[in-house]
């Protein structure tokens, strides 16, 4: 029984990171129809910036806050310098632009930071908490709580605030949103900034467990994209469920079947789901909204 709990805690922790990356995809996809493959790079930037600020003597909390702000700025710049000038280009071109941006960011990180693997200390100690025989790291709870908090805040933002509703309106119908006086360009910029901030937060929360280096972004983007597709691209709840499900499938397969088939099992489940429900688990919501 303790094994099952151990696998669940492992799967949830990894899954929460996937979910946050998937949420980042969703935020930008909703506002601009672009699948932003530089999403993993935001996670990397969040982690790496915190590491370097912390090593330079900045208190951890301040380093984390600064890292999120810096990454959000990078997200805004990505939109202003790369995506916005190409407005009117086809979605495929825009996606290719984001792939280019991810390679660029990775290259810059290699020069600005370095090529080594890094970590910073966990927020509240490294001693595992034992729950019914399963050892859970305090940092895992931070990742789970942090992830839940981010989803909660964004939910409130989108349902209760005028700006949040304006972003949703832009997502639904850009022309109509413009006609009612919403600055759609600003909403897109906001989406990129938010998405980058969410990615950076994921990096800050997860780095004490997962470690980080300049090239962690690619793998995370792939898993996050898979999670977003599983839950249906563009649905925040789908990102949450898709991410956690992906993490749990990986952990269960590695624990009960064989670690060799871990990734294969995850992708088989995704393919099966997409075969039966081409829009993903939460696909219907998209159909209704549009």
């Amino acid at each position: 029984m303790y094994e099952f709990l151990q696998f669940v805690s492992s799967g949830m922790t990894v899954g929460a990171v996937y979910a946050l990356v998937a949420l980042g995809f969703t935020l930008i996809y909703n506002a601009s129809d672009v699948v932003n493959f530089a999403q993993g790079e935001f996670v990397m930037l969040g982690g790496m910036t915190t590491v370097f600020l912390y090593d330079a003597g900045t208190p951890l909390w301040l380093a984390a806050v600064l890292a999120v702000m810096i990454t959000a700025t990078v997200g805004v710049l990505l939109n202003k310098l790369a995506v916005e000038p190409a407005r009117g280009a086809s979605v495929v071109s825009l996606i290719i632009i984001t792939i280019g941006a991810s390679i660029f960011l990775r290259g810059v990180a290699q020069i600005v930071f370095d090529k080594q693997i890094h970590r910073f200390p966990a927020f509240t100690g490294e001693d595992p908490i034992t729950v019914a025989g399963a050892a859970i790291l305090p940092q895992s709870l931070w990742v789970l709580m942090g992830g839940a908090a981010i989803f909660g805040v964004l939910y409130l933002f989108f349902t209760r605030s005028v700006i949040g509703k304006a972003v949703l309106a832009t997502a639904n119908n850009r022309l109509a949103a413009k006609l009612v006086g919403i600055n759609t360009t600003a909403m897109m910029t906001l989406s990129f900034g938010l998405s980058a901030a969410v990615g950076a937060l994921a990096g800050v929360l997860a780095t004490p467990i997962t470690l980080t280096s300049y090239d962690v972004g690619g793998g995370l983007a792939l898993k996050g994209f898979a999670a977003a597709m599983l839950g249906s691209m563009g649905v925040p709840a789908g990102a949450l469920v898709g991410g956690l499900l992906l993490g749990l499938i990986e952990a269960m397969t590695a624990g009960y079947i064989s670690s060799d088939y871990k990734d294969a099992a995850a992708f088989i489940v995704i393919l099966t789901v997409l075969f039966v429900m081409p829009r993903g688990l939460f696909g219907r919501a998209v159909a209704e909204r549009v």
Partner: protein
Amino acid sequence: MRLKSTLAVSALAMMAANPAAAEIRLGAVLSVTGPASFLGDPELKTLEMLVEEVNAQGGINGEEVVLIHYDDGGDANRARTFATRLVEDDEVAAVIGGSTTGVTMAVAPVFEANEIPFISLAGAVVIINPLNPWVFKTPHTDRMACESIFTDLTARGLSSIGMISGQGGFGTSMREQCIDVAGEYGIEIVADETYGPRDSDMTPQLTSIAATDGVEAVVNAGFGQGPAIVTRNFAQLGIDLPLYQSHGVASDAFIELAGDAAEGVRLPGTALLVADLLAEDDPQHAVVTAYRAAYEDRFEEPVSTFGGYAHDAFWIMAQAIESAGSTDGAAVRDAIEATTGWVGVTGEFNMSPDDHMGLDLSAFRMLEIVDGGWSIID
């Protein structure tokens, strides 16, 4: 008159083909950038430093050494192109390089076809077995790392182990070698798990290993961030078994990443890593201390095992060219094969026509991490 000018032209052509008789052109193909940059970067720095050192002392046989290097970015295709360029355009006399096994295997045929002595800096046993008459290597093999770990296990009276290996080239190759050689040491591998190169949590695999009956120790084959995470997860789960890592993570960075969890971890490492702990009369003491001081003074970063491979490759090549008295390929090759009893930072090299690495198990020191530092187990 006509004949004379023809002669003059052909003499000029010959001079162009041999840019300068009084220089030794040494080629290098290294992965200075890209995913294997942690290998190629210290290797190139080491070569540049040593070439300068040799030239300051008057070169080899009075001839200046010129280093011509290309960065393959870890891409075997590109490396192959550069290898051809080294041979055809740069007309190098000898080549050092191939930071990874993949790159080495891609470029080796080029040097073999042109009969140019080539010393690789990559680990896998396939580079020298089957033997290629023109290809040598200075790093120890992953098979030797397995043997070294198994020797230590046997000394501790342990015989059944669980393995957890990275799915990258290094982990896969070492896992195969360990499984292959385990029988010779009476070691039984009762659990065998893997993890992906970008995985961030190995607790499921370790939980299964710990739950397997009869596991007495765990061996982790891999490099990069994987082993650090495995070590942390191992401590998190409170698994009370000896944990062995491979030579792939033998660096201070590993202790830093794994933190307190690294306490008690054992791994086979080179003398270079524990230069401070070597006895004064240790045969490697002088060469290790000198290289470390020179490298760290100049580049202001900690010396790495990988730079050490380049150090040994360069001196073996330099000595071979010196004793051959020329840069004739076959003569240099024979001189490399004649290298015996030469002590480098990686170990004592005893090359022969059948052994193009020349290291034995004594090149590995079994190390244990104690109080956040290294200690030598004997």
